[in-house]
């Protein structure tokens, strides 16, 4: 073995044992980075990590709050910030929104950081912390990085020490590690000339440590920095920790190139894993190394647990900063998925608190082990009933919610399943909801509705609609629960009950057929051809309803059983929100497959989907209420309370 290789081998032995590497040894590790050397580094870093943390990998249920993206900093690489509220991408949250979100999600930790601006001046920030603390005694508040603290200090005229003391008083538990970027003077001049110099960043952190505030430290790499600069950055942190200990966790962040070519400039696992391993070996005095998945991407971050990292960042809700720069990692990972990922990586997932202690076992709910009829084993997915019609295809594109699985059922069958508890949630026919009152809650305002013709709820008739009489009969598909009631209502309102057509059980004998879903849509496309019979009159029931009432018709609503466990509701709520924000994209993605399945041109199918309303607005809700009210009135006039047509 030549002397250079020996030097490296010796350094790795030291590093694996947790002993300090001198600067020359640290630099030797990056002299010529290759995959071979990465693996050797990873091996040593992993040994070091196991000695400290065993096989555990921690994650924390945290919520990231970025109060506003208006920022005077204007750092070169940042795609998150805007100059003023006039920018269309600008936003500024208010206390109410922030507090409500924290109350609703009840996280272990909040991470508050954002832009430097006048909308959220120091006092407002401090008071936000006070309010959070007063409402949540145990919440770990990790708020305001060194850049923000310095900004507050300057703006208020108090010193950094004074600001920090007040923030501690208000309830801050720790400082996040942002704003460090790369300490190298060369890069600071190039990219962040106005930003606080490295020594000042370190000074703020040391000041925080002195008065008992633990902090984190970051490093932004991948924007033209050299390996030597990365090692220097780590050595500077190590020295700072020696002078004034208090850093809890080091977080390497990969530069996100945004619109520029991610293949050529984005994070790559080779570099990310190398940085993690290097960090574990060099930072002998910093306890934790974090794999930050919004920056490194999920697969590399998970692999990173085997290259020195012991913490995966928390289950972020609405991480905005990395995503503004085009990070393609998913915006929020449910805790369950985090634990699964850590398990797939071969480690033991441990949920922790803000101080890196395992969350107390007594908080059973938090860890998701509560037993319920729907979920008596943490690994069994909860069941969500899915109507197998084309109008639900965009949901299939999205895939099931975290921890859930789809069960295909026709609309009427899903009501029975909901009642029996064999599914926990469904996009249930509105017509069946009154019978489910008390058993289910609506999940936000999502479902299937249409304003005007929907093309997939049709009465196919040999006889004009207005001429249907007692001598006629109507065949009704077994699948429906809403549409049949709608048909009754439309037929019955203007006629006496003695004049209603009968229900036919033999399609061949019937004067009309009520058809829904894909069969209906195809019949519509084929001008009334259904099961070999051409019906001259094609009556769109949603269109009829709209003509009479001027309101949309809601066919189905997403509902969840009232006794569903909290984590199931959380997952479903997040899933529907995801759907809301991606609806257009999911519909567009579903169209080609649907077109192929139905054997129709794509634009015809796209046109159909354009008429389906899935995210319900006030008009849709009014339409739903009007229907249920009308139905209640109408069915009250019938003997037995239900028309003969409605099967139990």
């Amino acid at each position, binding site marked *: 073995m030549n002397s250079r290789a020996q030097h490296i081998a010796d350094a*790795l032995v030291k590093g694996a044992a947790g002993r300090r590497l001198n600067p020359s040894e640290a630099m030797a590790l990056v002299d010529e980075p290759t995959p071979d*050397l990465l693996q050797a580094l990873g091996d040593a870093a992993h040994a070091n990590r196991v000695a400290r943390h065993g096989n555990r990998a921690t994650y924390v249920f945290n919520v990231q709050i970025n109060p506003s993206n208006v920022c005077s900093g204007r750092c070169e690489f940042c795609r998150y910030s805007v100059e003023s509220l006039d920018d269309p991408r600008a936003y500024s949250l208010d206390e109410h929104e922030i507090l409500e979100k924290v109350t609703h999600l009840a996280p272990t930790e909040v991470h508050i950081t954002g832009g430097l601006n006048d909308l959220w001046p120091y006092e407002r920030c401090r008071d936000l912390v006070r309010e959070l603390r007063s409402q949540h005694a145990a919440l770990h508040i990790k708020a305001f990085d060194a850049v923000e603290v310095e900004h507050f200090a300057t703006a208020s005229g108090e010193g950094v020490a004074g600001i920090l003391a007040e923030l501690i008083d208000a309830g801050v538990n720790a400082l996040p590690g942002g704003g460090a970027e790369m300490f190298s003077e060369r890069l600071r001049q190039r990219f962040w000339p106005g930003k606080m110099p490295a020594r000042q960043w370190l000074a703020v952190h040391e000041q925080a440590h002195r008065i008992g505030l633990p902090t984190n430290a970051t490093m932004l790499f991948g924007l033209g920095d050299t390996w030597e600069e990365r090692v220097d950055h780590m050595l500077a942190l190590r020295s700072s920790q020696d002078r004034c200990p208090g850093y809890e966790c080091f977080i390497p962040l990969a530069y996100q190139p945004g619109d520029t070519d991610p293949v050529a400039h984005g994070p790559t696992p080779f570099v990310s894993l190398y940085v993690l391993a290097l960090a574990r070996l060099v930072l002998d005095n910093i306890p934790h190394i974090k794999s930050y998945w919004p920056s490194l*991407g999920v697969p590399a971050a998970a692999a990173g647990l085997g290259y020195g990292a012991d913490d995966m960042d928390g289950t972020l809700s609405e991480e905005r900063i990395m995503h503004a720069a085009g990070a393609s990692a998913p915006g929020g990972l449910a805790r369950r998925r985090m634990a699964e990922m850590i398990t797939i990586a071969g480690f033991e997932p441990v949920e922790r608190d803000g101080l890196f202690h395992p969350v107390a076992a007594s908080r059973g709910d938090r860890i998701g082990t509560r037993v319920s009829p729907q979920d008596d084993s943490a690994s069994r997915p909860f069941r969500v009933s899915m109507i197998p019609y084309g109008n639900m295809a965009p949901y299939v594109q999205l895939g099931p919610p975290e921890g859930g699985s789809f069960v295909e059922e026709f609309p009427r069958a899903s009501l029975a399943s909901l009642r029996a508890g064999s599914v926990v949630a469904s996009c249930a026919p509105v017509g069946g909801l009154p019978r489910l009152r008390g058993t289910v809650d609506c999940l936000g305002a999502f479902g299937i509705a249409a304003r005007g013709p929907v093309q997939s709820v049709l009465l196919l008739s040999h006889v004009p609609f207005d001429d249907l009489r007692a001598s006629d009969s109507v065949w009704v598909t077994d699948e429906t629960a809403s549409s049949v009631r709608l048909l009754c209502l439309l037929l019955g309102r203007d006629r006496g009950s003695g004049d209603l057509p009968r229900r036919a059980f033999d399609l061949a004998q019937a004067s009309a057929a009520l058809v829904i879903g894909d069969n209906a849509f195809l019949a519509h496309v084929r001008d009334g051809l259904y099961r070999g019979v051409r019906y001259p009159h094609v009556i769109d029931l949603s269109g009829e309803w709209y003509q009479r009432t001027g309101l949309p018709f809601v066919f189905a609503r997403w509902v969840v059983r009232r006794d569903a466990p909290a984590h199931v509701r959380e997952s479903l709520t997040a899933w529907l929100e995801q759907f809301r924000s991606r609806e257009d994209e999911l519909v567009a993605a579903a169209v080609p497959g649907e077109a192929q399945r139905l054997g129709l041109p794509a634009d015809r199918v796209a046109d159909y989907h354009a008429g389906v309303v899935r995210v319900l607005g006030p008009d849709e809700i009014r339409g739903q209420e009007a229907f249920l009210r009308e139905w209640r009135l109408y069915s009250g006039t019938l003997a037995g309370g239900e028309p003969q047509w409605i099967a139990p």
Partner: protein
Amino acid sequence: MNSGNTSYPRPVCGENRRVSPDEALELLTRVPVGDLMRRAYGARAERFPGRVVTYVLDTNPNYTNVCVTGCRFCAFSRPQGHAEAYTLSPRSLAERVRKSYERGATTVLLQGGHHPGLRLSDWLAYVRCIRAACPHIHIHPFSPSEVVFLSKTTGAPVPEILGALYAEGIRTIPGGGAEILCDRVRARIAPEKATAAEWLAVAETAHRMGFRTTATMMFGHVETDEEIIEHLVRLRDLQDRTGGFSSFIPWSFKPGNSPLGKEVCQSAHPLRYVRVLATARLVLDNIDHIQSSWFSESITAGQLGLLAGADDFGGILFEENVLQQAGHQRATTLDTVLTVIRRAGFVPARRDSLYNVIEEHDDAAAGADVLARVLARRTDCTERGR
């Protein structure tokens, strides 16, 4: 430049002892990912020291999308008579291949649906027409499942079909149709397709005749961990007998627009891909090459695969129908692949279909340079009358 013959302390892998099925299961599911990757990387480095990752310039036309086998994971096939059904004539196919060849493709991976009306003579016509249009392209056609289907449809025994191909100069056959080599899984995802035993029998016959074939695996649907291991062990056992597999290529099932996709709604975690690949490298101690795919997975997963035992990055496709139809889109250029390999820490090298390295590329070589050299070599060959 670092030759890669490093003497840094490296994790020991295998200790010259074969990985048992129980150990394989442990590797697949429990060993911490870093250890697994490093062990697999070590196995790769023992076989192929250095930083080279190979790729091949190929084109993947499909001669027909008519198929009666109805695999539940496929959104590519069409019934005969369907508006979108097609079967290429030998001339059209050869024309497509020629176009790709002129852009630089050195090999053609030719596959298609199981068309009940096609005969061995049609297969041979395809091969001959391609030969006539591009005498120097390497033809890498069909697959064990297509061979089984042709044999059942026409009554021609498998050795006869393979013998006819051999006589036409074919020397390699792709490993398509393997999916998971367990009949329980096959019954659920592709009940009409060749059984595991039938697939393996074709591969074995082909190897004994002198063909080299690849082996594949599609995971991430209804299979169990044990079944993945069983698949690998069955390949290893056959390789012990014949030595004819040149490489192993796993990929994850993409739900998308297929019947199975509606049942299995979430694709396998990318880390699972890395684990499968690394486990394959360690179990398949008798198969030279393990292919990681950025095309079928993601760039990050593909790059992680190179750190987890893979030594090859597959084909730079000039055309690819099957994955696109199932809702999975990728743009593919040679420059992208070269960049991806380099940024993963490796040195890209162009190979042929027998996995011989044709040329290693230095840092400066761009896609256009590589293709220019490919085309220049041909002119040289033509001028020398080859």
